[in-house]
């Protein structure tokens, strides 16, 4: 094996207020399989975007075949032989396999007419199909392929570009076991041909299976590299966590009361044959942890009536209720602060006032005419209460910072009478100061008798804020943790589908 053809040296990237990467160094030699692991938000994606030329690092050197430079462009990355297999595949399902592989660089014929030379295109794909052992043809329409097959098309695209390094971002997250096995074999095959692979995953057994070494990121830093000989799930988890969490926890004023929201054997469309049962008690914050894609958001959407629940039942204060649409949920006092604030939570170019009153407009009106004075009065009150920083309540919410936008979403629901509040990533894209204010508000709400279900991928938040944690793994609850059991180790164990040991290490 020859020396590294690609070196990252002290790569840093900071965004206003956040350091996403902090002097990260990484070397890639031909034919090497590197697993890149770390919690959500550890900086894996940013690092890969730097490699792909999408993100310009704020510091450090990238050395390709010995030539040093401070950043790559997308074209540079392709020229250097770096290819991506994205989590969300970048394919066109209205085209066939060959057309997808050659998109943007189609072989042409007919001189100035530049007609697509379909024959040459299909011929070009044939050896790749063979090499990967694909069970579909070059002219198969992409729309008819399964997710795993589409992934192979992405890999073919990378290979047809003579990629030396293929970066796979959680390639197995939606594959079945057999499909995963096949992918593992393909990874081994690529390696045998001298192609290097960076493999981002949360599944530690896959790392065990295929990686030559594992690089562990935490808070934007490389916290350790494990060689093949050193690899073990325990070692990886130890590196992934192992920081002192600031203690954010404020205990509730009173012990939790009866169960308010009870979800019984609920299944969602994403995992139709897995069910979830959990209950949130009066005055408690139940953290819902799990990896991205474990079905938490889908559960929240179904409870709020956005999607249909597949079987199962929901009890509110012990009584069975039917939630056919969000209106029904809202009438019952179940409110959702969605993950996609800009797409689902707010009308961005509408004023703070009108955003706040929207779900409860009828109560600001007489004879179906909106009483704008009352509306505004409430908005001012909420601005005061939640400390929404804006020039005035007529400001469009789109011009506010993330934290203040989130406070507006919160203000919508606090203007009404919440029984159950579901938060989906309550502080994503929220600055530190506003984060603390939101946490304080959550505690004040539970102390006032509200039950809170908080979906969060931020370990510090889940452990620091929750009174109890439920962990989801592939559409089902893999375990509950009481405060005495709270640790990153335990949450992570459950999140990757392992059981927790009765006594922590």
């Amino acid at each position, binding site marked *: 094996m020859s020396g590294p053809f690609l070196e990252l040296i002290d790569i840093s990237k900071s965004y206003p207020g956040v350091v996403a990467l902090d002097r990260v160094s990484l070397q890639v030699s031909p034919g090497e399989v590197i697993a890149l692991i770390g919690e959500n938000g550890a900086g894996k994606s940013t690092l890969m975007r730097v490699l792909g030329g999408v993100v310009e690092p704020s510091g450090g050197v990238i050395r390709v075949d010995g030539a040093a430079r401070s950043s790559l462009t997308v074209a540079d990355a392709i020229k250097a032989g770096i290819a991506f297999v994205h989590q969300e595949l970048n394919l066109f399902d209205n085209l066939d396999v060959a057309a997808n592989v050659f998109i943007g660089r189609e072989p042409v014929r007919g001189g100035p007419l530049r007609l697509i030379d379909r024959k040459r295109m299909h011929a070009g794909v044939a050896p790749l199909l063979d090499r990967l052992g694909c069970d579909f043809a070059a002219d198969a329409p992409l729309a008819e392929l399964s997710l795993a097959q589409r992934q192979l098309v992405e890999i073919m695209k990378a290979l047809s570009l003579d990629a030396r390094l293929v970066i796979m971002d959680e390639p197995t997250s939606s594959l079945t076991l057999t499909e995963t096995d096949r992918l593992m074999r393909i990874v081994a095959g690529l390696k045998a041909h001298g192609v290097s692979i960076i493999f981002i995953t949360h599944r530690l057994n896959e790392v065990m299976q295929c990686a030559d070494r594992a690089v562990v990121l935490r808070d934007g830093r490389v916290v350790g590299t494990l060689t093949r000989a050193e690899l073990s799930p325990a070692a990886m988890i130890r590196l992934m966590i192992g920081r002192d969490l600031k203690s954010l926890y404020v205990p509730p004023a009173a012990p939790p009361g009866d169960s308010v929201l009870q979800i019984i054997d609920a299944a969602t469309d994403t995992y139709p044959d897995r069910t979830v049962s959990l209950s949130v008690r009066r005055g408690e914050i139940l953290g819902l942890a799990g990896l991205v894609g474990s079905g938490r958001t889908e559960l929240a959407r179904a409870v*709020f009536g*956005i999607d249909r629940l597949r079987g199962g039942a929901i009890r509110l204060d012990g009584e069975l209720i039917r939630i056919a*649409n*969000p*209106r029904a*949920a*809202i*009438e019952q006092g179940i409110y*959702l602060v*969605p993950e996609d604030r800009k*797409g*689902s*939570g*707010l*009308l*961005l*170019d*509408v*004023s703070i006032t*009108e955003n706040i009153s*929207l*779900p409860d*407009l*009828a109560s600001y*009106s007489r004879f*179906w*005419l*909106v009483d704008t004075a009352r509306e505004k009065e409430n908005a001012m009150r909420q601005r005061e209460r939640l400390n929404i*920083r*804006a*020039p005035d309540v*007529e*400001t*469009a919410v*789109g*011009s*506010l*910072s993330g934290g203040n936008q989130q406070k507006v979403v919160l203000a*919508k629901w606090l203007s009404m009478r919440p029984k159950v509040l579901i938060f989906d990533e309550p502080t994503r894209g929220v600055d530190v100061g506003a984060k603390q204010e939101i946490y304080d508000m959550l505690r004040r709400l539970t102390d006032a008798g509200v039950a809170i279900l908080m979906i969060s991928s931020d370990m510090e938040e889940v452990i620091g804020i929750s009174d109890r944690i439920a962990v989801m793994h592939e559409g089902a609850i893999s375990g509950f943790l009481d405060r005495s059991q709270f640790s990153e180790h335990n949450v992570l164990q459950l999140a990757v589908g392992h059981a927790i040991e009765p006594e922590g290490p």
Partner: protein
Amino acid sequence: MSKKDLSLLVLILLVGTVVALINPRFLYVGNLSNTANQVGLFGIFSIAQAFVIIIGGIELSVGSVIALLGVLFIDLIVNHDVDWLVATAIIVAAGLVIGLVHGTLVTRMRIQAFVVTLCGLLIYRGAARYYTEDATAGFGFGASFPMLEWLAAGRTNVLGFPLPHSVVALGVVTIIAWVVLHRSVFGRYLYAVGKNEEAARYSGIRSSRVIISAYVICGGLTAFSAILIAMYTRSISPAVHGSFYELYAIAAAVLGGCSLRGGEGSIIGVVLGTVLLQMLQNLVNLLGIPSSLNFAVMGTVILAGVLGDQYLVQRRHRVGAAKGRGQASAAAVPIEKMKAE
């Protein structure tokens, strides 16, 4: 009145002044009264269209609905001796049903509004022609409905100006539509759904119902205008009656500040847009421009108007961005688009 409406009003006054200077006949009472009548007739179905455009939809069948319902109305009162009040109720109900069908197809069947209403355009036109066997429907010899004719197509002398009753009707429709759109809970929902249907749903708004209601309102208002137009023309050739009217309506709505992406527009703007369009029609006649150029003039003016507006918006954004860099004061622009006062 929003800035947008104001600039449209200024444009109208400007065009009016220029036309009046070139040809003083523009200001003759008779000419003004006739133009006002056109504004009254076209304004009602333009407002109808605006409801649908605000929720992010489009209604292409307006012209065909006007032909079909016009034919049916005249047939009911002339050939079937239906009392005109009953006939009016039937026709408006038919318009509401058409809207209900369109809205249901768009929301429940998830067919694009353009496609649904394009099919409507073809179907209703065909139905109108088949029903009359392509013959002109009109009032027979001696047939007369003095009360109805006076109400729908008459004029009342107000301070020496013969005010067409269609203008009175438009006035009433405008006031009601203004209150509904800009003051009522339902109006707020219409804008919310048009701006971001997803977020509206997450706020508990039953967006499908709101969308269907917009089409129903559009259908009902269009039916009402169909009766007025039928009574004004007094005879209907089903092959051409009302053709292209949907485009007049869309043009008026766009001139009036509606965005085809939805969530924007004001009733005052739509009425002013109609006024400008009818003035342009009138201008073509008065300035001796060949009437074959009619559409070309209209198209050019609309394009120029939209371009000018785009330029102003972008300039405001640049100025705002330069001023508010680093501060949270930048984007006050979009709110005033939404607020139409």
